[in-house]
């Protein structure tokens, strides 16, 4: 019996999907920064985060990939959309980007990228020991609640402070507006 794996080798499919994910990520990232309209930016950010979630699957972690989808695409992008809806649309984008500023920004980022890539290629990356391959969510949970317990609790505290602070700062704007 012929299966589809006889015609197309699975490794080729895996590689093809990987490069498609890279394309999705990079095109989303460009869409997140270049257009002047904010809604397009948020959509590009969601697309880029989706691609990165797929790439995390190739890095062996389903848990982090799902968290990426939930937190970035699900929570952060929706928060941005809410913030956009809370401010009137005529203030959002639509104005011409300054060409001079754009050229300077492009120059800065290209120089940074070249420096980073030269550094990355010149360095000899070698693993210290045999790489571990224990990727289960169970192990991750145990590590989070034992070795990184303090960091875990601190992140929870930071999130609580951020939520309360967000409410307070937004109310600050209201009280000043009424004066």
């Amino acid at each position, binding site marked *: 019996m012929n299966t589809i794996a006889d015609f197309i080798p699975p490794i080729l499919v*895996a590689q093809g999907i990987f490069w498609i994910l890279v394309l999705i*990520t*990079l095109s989303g*990232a*460009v869409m997140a*920064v270049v257009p*002047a309209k*904010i809604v397009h*930016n948020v959509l590009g*950010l969601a697309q880029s*985060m989706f691609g*990165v979630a797929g*790439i*995390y699957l*190739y*890095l062996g972690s389903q848990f*982090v990939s799902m968290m990426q989808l939930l937190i970035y695409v699900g*929570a*952060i992008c929706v*928060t*941005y959309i809410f*913030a956009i809806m*809370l*401010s009137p649309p005529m*203030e*959002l*984008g639509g104005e011409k*980007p300054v060409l001079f*500023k*754009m050229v*300077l*920004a*492009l120059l*800065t*980022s290209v120089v940074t*990228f070249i420096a*980073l*890539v030269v550094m*990355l290629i010149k360095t000899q*990356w*070698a*693993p*210290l020991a045999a*790489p*571990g391959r*224990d*990727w289960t969510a169970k*192990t*991750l949970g145990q590590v*989070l609640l034992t070795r*990184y317990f303090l960091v875990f609790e601190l*992140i929870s505290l930071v*999130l609580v402070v*951020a*939520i309360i*602070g*967000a409410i307070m700062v937004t109310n600050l*704007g209201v009280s*000043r*507006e009424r004066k």
Partner: protein
Amino acid sequence: MESLLTYVILGALLFCIGIFGLLQHNSLIGMLIATELILNGAGLNAMAFGFFLSSDATIGQAFTLFIMGIAAAEAAIALSIMIAVFRRFHDIRVDAISQLKG
């Protein structure tokens, strides 16, 4: 697909696109979106190094999760500041907000 360099260069690309957006964009929300891209580049790097170099596979994942938590907190705070700024100045273009005393 099987080498560390691919992932790390992808992370560097995300980082640099984020820097470009941060410098080029004119509104506060656009700059925040670019910041998310920068944080994602960092998270991708942490995952790649954890996958290819670390002897303990959970370290990279834990760091990426922490980066996500920090990013969520940062987005909440920064968006609320942005809404407060908008209510105060009725503008979110960074060039228009030049008055410091509240």
